[in-house]
Every structure is written in structure tokens, then in C-alpha cells.
């Protein structure tokens, strides 16, 4: 993420735009990826772009998106949203975690993992994403930010390998 995207994301958060509107914008951008291209197109005039923004996006986001398109930063909208979400999470006191596993964990396991993250990081909640990764062979890897908790077979094999070949 670039510093610019980070700043725009923070501004978006500071604007106190309703969360549904942001979700709606995200959905619109996902549904029509060519939108970003159009908004970034230097051959189109500002007025045309402003019109597009006004017709498609919710009212509370108009000024923000107009500024973004005027400065031609539309290609960084994804990063801006990422930074926005980080701000929201920080306010709520929760962290994002990704669970890489071979088999989908059951509710009980999931709850335990969430509790582990809550305890380790001293947070109120966890935003858990589960991603299946068959090449882990077995077990799971829990990732919070840059920190990784490796309890997978692949990790253990790698550890063993390191220990055997280390001089």
C-alpha cells in the first residue's frame, strides 16, 4: 500500500460516511471493473466523470470520489478501501486474521482460534477469513498482519529440514 492510498483511506474514514454507502461503492466497483478505467481516463473531461459519479454512487461519497478522480488516483481505490477498513477495525478494537487450512474448521475450533487471537492481541473481536490451502498437507496457519502462527505439516517439515541441513 502506498502512502497516498493510506492518506485517502484515512480521510474517507474521517468523513464519517455511512458504512453502507462505502459497501455500496465497493459493490459497484466490483460489479463494473471498467469504471475505474473510465474514471482514470485522461481523455475524458472532469465534467463527464463527475456526472458518472453522481449517477452511480451514493450522495455522501460524491465529493470524495470527485477529488479522487480529479487527482487521477482512481487506480488506488482498492488500497484506499483497505486502509479505510483498517481504521474501522482499529476503532472497534478488532483485528483481521486469515486462517489457511486444509479442511474447513468446525464452529468450536473457530471459536477457540478467535479466542486465542483475542487473548494474544488483547482485542475485542476478530475478523476471520478462512482460506483453503491444500499444499499445507495438514494442520493450519493462522496469520494476523505479518505474524504467522504455523501449526501445519508443511511448516513442521520445513523446520525439520532446516534443522537437518543447518551447519
Amino acid at each position, binding site marked *: 500500500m502506498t502512502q497516498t492510498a493510506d492518506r485517502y483511506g484515512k480521510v474517507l474514514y474521517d468523513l464519517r460516511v455511512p458504512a453502507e454507502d462505502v459497501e455500496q461503492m465497493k459493490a459497484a466497483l466490483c460489479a463494473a471493473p471498467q469504471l475505474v478505467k473510465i474514471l482514470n481516463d485522461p481523455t475524458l473531461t472532469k465534467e463527464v466523470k463527475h456526472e458518472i459519479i453522481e449517477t452511480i454512487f451514493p450522495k455522501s461519497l460524491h465529493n470524495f470520489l470527485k477529488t479522487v478522480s480529479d487527482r487521477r488516483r482512481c487506480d488506488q481505490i482498492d488500497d484506499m478501501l483497505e486502509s479505510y477498513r483498517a481504521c474501522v477495525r482499529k476503532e472497534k478494537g478488532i483485528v483481521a486474521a486469515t486462517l489457511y487450512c486444509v479442511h474447513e474448521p468446525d464452529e468450536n475450533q473457530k471459536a477457540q482460534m478467535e479466542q486465542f487471537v483475542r487473548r494474544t492481541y488483547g482485542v475485542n473481536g476478530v475478523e476471520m477469513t478462512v482460506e483453503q490451502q491444500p499444499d499445507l498437507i495438514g494442520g493450519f496457519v493462522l496469520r494476523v498482519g505479518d505474524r504467522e502462527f*504455523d501449526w501445519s505439516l508443511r511448516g513442521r517439515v520445513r523446520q525439520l529440514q532446516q534443522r*537437518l541441513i543447518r551447519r
Partner: protein
Amino acid sequence: MSTISSEEIISILKEKIENYDAMCQEQETGKVISVGDGIATIYGIDHAMYGEIVTFENGEKGMVQDIRQDTIGCILFGKDTGIKEGTRVVRTKKKAGIPVGEGFVGRVINALGEPIDGKGAVEEDDYYPVEREAPGIIERKSVSVPMETGILSIDSMFPIGRGQRELIIGDRQTGKTAIATDTILNQKGKDVICVYVAIGQKASTIAKLVNTLTKHDAMDYTIIVSATASDCAPLQYIAPYSGTAMAEYFMHKGKDVLIVYDDLSKHAVAYRALSLLLERSPGREAYPGDVFYLHSRLLERSSRLSDEEGGGSITALPIIETQAGDLSAYIPTNVISITDGQIFLESDLFFSGMRPAVNVGLSVSRVGGAAQTKAMKKAAGSIRIDLAQYREMEVFTQFSSDLDETTKAQLQYGKCLMELLKQPLCNPLSMPQQVITLVAATHKVLVDVEVSKLKAFQMDMLQYFADMHKEIIDELNDKKVLSDELTEKIVEVAEEFKKSRC
């Protein structure tokens, strides 16, 4: 090594695997964005420290050298072939360090402390960080014990003390390394540990050096840290720091250590390559702005510790190669100003047969005088001035042939001194031998000996002293003082020897 059978290997592996206790690893990880020229740029590992070691998925190690807003620049201690975009990187939370211990004495190791002489693993006693802060003012003591090089011209005119940093500077092929090797050879039996750090040298040169040292039994107290020209720039960059860490281990144990950095100009070049690849802005001669700090923090770690700290010392002999005698280039001026003196070697002198080719006028030792033994100080007395006068007068001889008697005598004396200062390789002289030579020379005993035969005469005379008048050598060794009576006695014996020869 080849005697281990496959069954044994398998049983060792089995045992390792059976005893292997898997742990849940909590790690901070990142991913490689780009890699090239021995530099990897990494995304993630936000909390990595400057100088921290990181490990790559394939076991390769790197050191954090550049921390930016969202990327980390790493130098790699090995080949970058196994590292791709997306390769996983893990923090170790450890600063770069090397294993140290008594077991390393007599070994050849690389910059990471791994033995490369094929003599098997080394038992380590401790783990020392490669970068360590230099001892402070309180921990230090002034230099007072001589570090004898065994080279007459250096010990008499530019004495080196234990804990001093004396630069050896000169063009290529002027005998810089030879002075360092002779000094190492002369430390035999003096309870000094020697560390020779080879930076950017040819592997063949290092092999030759190891041979020389082994032949003279000097490997028993020497460690060689080698980063050859084929090693990557990061290894060449940390080699002198590793060598110093090794030396510090012995210094902290109260021992005296001699460390030779051969040579720091190549070290600066390796650092320049790294810095430019890390996109640091180039300055004079394309060196980065902190190239002075690069050497000052290294050489500042050489010191003489106070008695409370154990009283150990590190004496540094950094070597710098100049281009066509240019002392005012960037690196030479830097290192000259950091060190406590320099020995300047000149190619003209070298080719005129004056070996070691020490330029008496430009060489200096700033603190060694305090460490010189009284006997040597008294014996050496005025030879520096005498030599200066001789050089001045030598110019006149080219113009006129008929000179008065005093000038002729002075010229003859100067010639004799110059001849005595010549010394063959691997032939260090002990302190008494040097004192006897100097006393005989300054009392004009040797003036009327034919110059071409002077060197042989000197050696025979020293042998005569050792055989017939051992009491003189013993007295010099014990008291380290040159009394007037002793001077008289030496002159007397020298005259006696001269008579017996003629």
C-alpha cells in the same frame, strides 16, 4: 570424512527425526518483492530492526540494511539464485553475530564464522555480535606495552604499542602484506593472538599466507577470517567486523590481540557497491556519505582495556592500497585521520632495493613512543634525524665529487644506516638484536665495513653476541634498559668481533 557409511548417515538422520520435537512457530513473515545483485526488497516484516538477520525460505540468510516506509532492503549472504518474487522471509529477531571461542585459533573461517579449511566443525564458546560499540573512555587505558614487529626500521623509528592502530599504506607490490605477516610471525611465544582478515583478496594469496604461517608455526596462535574476491559484497562488508568480534572475545579474556585488515580499500569498494545498489546517494569517488563512519567505528573498537576490564588489548594494522602513491584520495585520507599513525611504503624505494620500503619522512607513529622500551628508545636516539640529514646531503653528492671529510663521513654513516634497515622477509629481529645493531651503528663501529658485506657482517655479529656474550642479551631482555656501561660493553664486543673478522 569419506569414511562415514550410508548406514551411519541414515541412523543419524533417524535419530534426529525421532528426537525432533515439533513446535508451533510464531513468526513474523514477509514476502520478497524483488531481488537482484545480492539485494532483496521485502514487503512485510514491519518490525525488523536495522542489522537484523532474516532467513529466506531456502535457508539463505540476509541482513536488513535499508528500512523504508513499506519495504525492507536486505543484503544477502550467499547466492540469490534460489530467491524469487514471493519467497517467504522470516525474522530471526537476532542481530548479525558469529560464534567465537578458543577452538577457532589455528583455523581459517569465512565472514560468518564457518570453518572453510576442511578440518571439521569448531566448538564455540560464545556468540558475539558482529557490530559492537567501542569501549568507552572509562574502560580504556593508555598504550604502554610495545607490540614488536621484529622489523628494525619500524620498531626503532615508528614503534607500535599494544592497543594502537597503525596504518600500513602504499601502492600495490610494495610489501604491505609482508610487514603484517612479519609482525604476526614475530608474535611467536609472546602470548598474542593474531587475527588476519582478508577482504577481497585472491584465494591463492590467502592459501600462500596460510602456508607461510604454517611453515613458521605461526598458525598456532592465528585465526584467518577470509572473504575472498569471489565472495559476495555483503560478506566482504562484514568480514572485518566479524574479525574484530573474534578479537574482542580474546581481548575480554585479558589477552593481547593483533588484528590485520588486508585491505580496507577493498572493503570500502564492497561497501560502495552495496550502498549504490541500496540506492543511497553517491558522494565523492561514488562512495556513500557514511564511508568515514564505516572505518571509524571499526577501528575505534581497537583499544587497550583498563585493569578493571581485564587489561586486554586489540592492536589493529589496517592496510590501504593507494593508486600511484596518491595519499590524498578519499579513503586513504579518511583512514590516515582515524589511525594513530601510518607506515608509508614507496614503490621507488622498493625497487631501489630498500626493503621494507618504509618512507622515513612520511611515516609516523603518534602514540607508540610511550610504549617503546627504554633500551630501544636510547639506542634509536637520533637515527631518524641522521637519516634525514643523509637524504638531504645525498642530493649534493650528485653535483660535486670532492667533498670535505666530515661530509664524506656523514654520507658513509647514512649509507650504512640505510643498509642496516634492510631486512629480508620472514626474518624478524628480537629487541636485543635490534638494540645491539643500533648501538653498533650509532657508535660508528660498522661505518668502515664495506656496504655490500654489511648485512652479512651484521648477522654474524649478532650470532657472535648470542654465542659468546649471552649475558648482554639476557640483561637487555630482563631489564629492558640500556645503561652506559652496557652500551660501552656492546661497542667493545662489536669492535672485538670486527677485529677478529679483518
